[in-house]
């Protein structure tokens, strides 16, 4: 351990009148060094524990980080509306449509469920819907979004596994006419009281093309929420690991 010979700071910057040390003084100095090291270690460990992953507590930021929603495309298919037609063109269209619809779904759930800054704010997601559907959003706020005043209840929602099967109505030339996405979204919600729930939203979104954008013109959705265990700390894994 530390000895007089191994106190370079003191040797490097000796104070006037302290060049000659007594045995008692060096013991006190050694204890102070030990205490300092212990405090530093404890503080470092505490900081590590408090800020790891999504953070059990946050010392530096009141808002948890926003996780990215990433719908996995389970299936992509076209539904022909005419008997004859270019099958390959329709297949290609279905793939491109599914990719476009997936992006809309990612944006919708990230905004409506994951980003605390837009919870319960139908205005933030309005552009994803047709005018007709937009008018219905307020009534369906508890399903389309985390909920009105969700910030009073929830601390964060960590997105888990989410999937979508996208079907595209096509004409014989391979033009996309409509799309339907059967979806399953999962998120692990942390509540203000420290408890956790798993949120699941399942159902179907109907999309219509508006210029270059696919907008939601209809939906049929179920949202369920059930108690969940707190995420188990494992290395740097995030709580989303249990929200699947």
């Amino acid at each position, binding site marked *: 351990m530390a000895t007089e010979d191994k106190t370079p700071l003191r040797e490097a910057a000796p104070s006037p009148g302290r060049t000659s040390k007594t045995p008692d003084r060096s013991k006190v100095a050694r204890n102070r060094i030990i205490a300092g090291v212990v405090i530093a270690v404890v503080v470092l460990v*505490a900081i590590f*524990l408090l800020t790891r992953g999504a953070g059990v507590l946050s010392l530096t930021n009141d808002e948890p980080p926003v996780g990215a929603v990433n719908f996995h495309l389970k299936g992509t298919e076209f539904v022909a509306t005419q*008997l004859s037609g270019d099958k390959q063109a329709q297949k290609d269209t279905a793939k491109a449509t599914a990719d476009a619809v997936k992006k809309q779904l990612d944006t919708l759930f990230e905004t409506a469920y994951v980003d605390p800054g837009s919870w319960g704010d139908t205005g933030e997601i309005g552009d994803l819907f047709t005018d007709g559907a937009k008018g219905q959003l307020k009534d369906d706020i508890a399903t389309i979004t985390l909920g009105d005043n969700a910030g009073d*209840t*929830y601390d964060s929602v960590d997105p888990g596994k989410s999937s979508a099967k996208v079907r595209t109505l096509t004409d014989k030339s391979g033009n996309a006419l409509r799309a339907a996405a059967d979806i399953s979204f999962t998120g692990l919600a942390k509540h203000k009281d420290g*408890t956790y729930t798993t949120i699941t939203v399942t*159902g179907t979104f109907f999309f219509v093309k508006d210029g270059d954008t696919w907008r939601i013109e209809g939906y049929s959705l*179920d949202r369920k929420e059930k108690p969940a*265990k707190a995420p188990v700390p494992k290395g740097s894994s995030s709580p989303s690991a249990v929200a699947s």
Partner: protein
Amino acid sequence: MTRRFVAVVLVLAAWLAGTVAGSLGSSPAAASSPGIAIGKAHTAEYTPSLTGSKPVVILAVGSGARPGEDPLHSLSDSIHLIFLNPDQHAGTIVGIPRDSWVDIPGHSSNKINSALAAGGPDLMVQTIEARFGVHIDYWAITTFWGFKSMLDKIGGLTVNVPFRMYDPSYSGADLQAGVQRLDGAQALAMARDRHSLLSGDFGRQENGGRLILAALTQFQKEFNGDAGSLFDWIGAGMTQINTSLTVDDVMLLAYTATAQPVGKLRNIVLPGSSQTIGGLSAVALNTTAVSQIFNDVTPDGIMSKKNVPPSPTANQP
């Protein structure tokens, strides 16, 4: 001094440990939080739909074309006018006997089913509009094989067959009475059979209406279980139907149909009697009753109970 440092370190460590342990060790069972009912399912449904008190009128025709023939220029086998009142979610299915003797614009009087053969859908529409004073918004025409294929694609149709139907020589119908799942061929046989019915074509037109209602019932049931199945129905229908409806129209009608109570749709057949007219076996419609029916149903698509004609199969054993 040293003791104070040690004490401070211990207190700090205990506080941190307690805080961290307390956070990590939260009860796994979540409790309800104010304003949120945990475990309560929320649902949300919205589809665009038709609106307005003016009825939408669709002419649905089963073409009697055989393979190789033009379904749009053949004799029609079944003829139905479907009235839908969007605002009241009610309507009427009016079956028109195919042998009804009518004036065909630009042609001489003939059976109504010859209008399709003589001038295609446009003349068929024109003939019905002129005879009954109704405006038709859309027409949809299918064939025997299209009807069969359509129903097979959706996995068959659950139908309450109202009575025993046995017609091995013509339609091939061999159905027991009662609720059952019919495949495409069986449903087609039920739609075509007139020989085993006491009321002949009148009863056949009524059975056509029954099949439409059965399809609507099943469509709604499947939509409520899996909304995405709507595309299966649309795909099955549009590939087998010639229609004046655009995809947008079909989508809007399909969305509207999801919320159309089946019980608020009446299924009637225009009354008349079989006669020989112009040397042909034809149907002379009951002019008074037909006028009452169309005066009643045309403005709003809804038929008053007092004007509902007797069921042509009421006496079928």
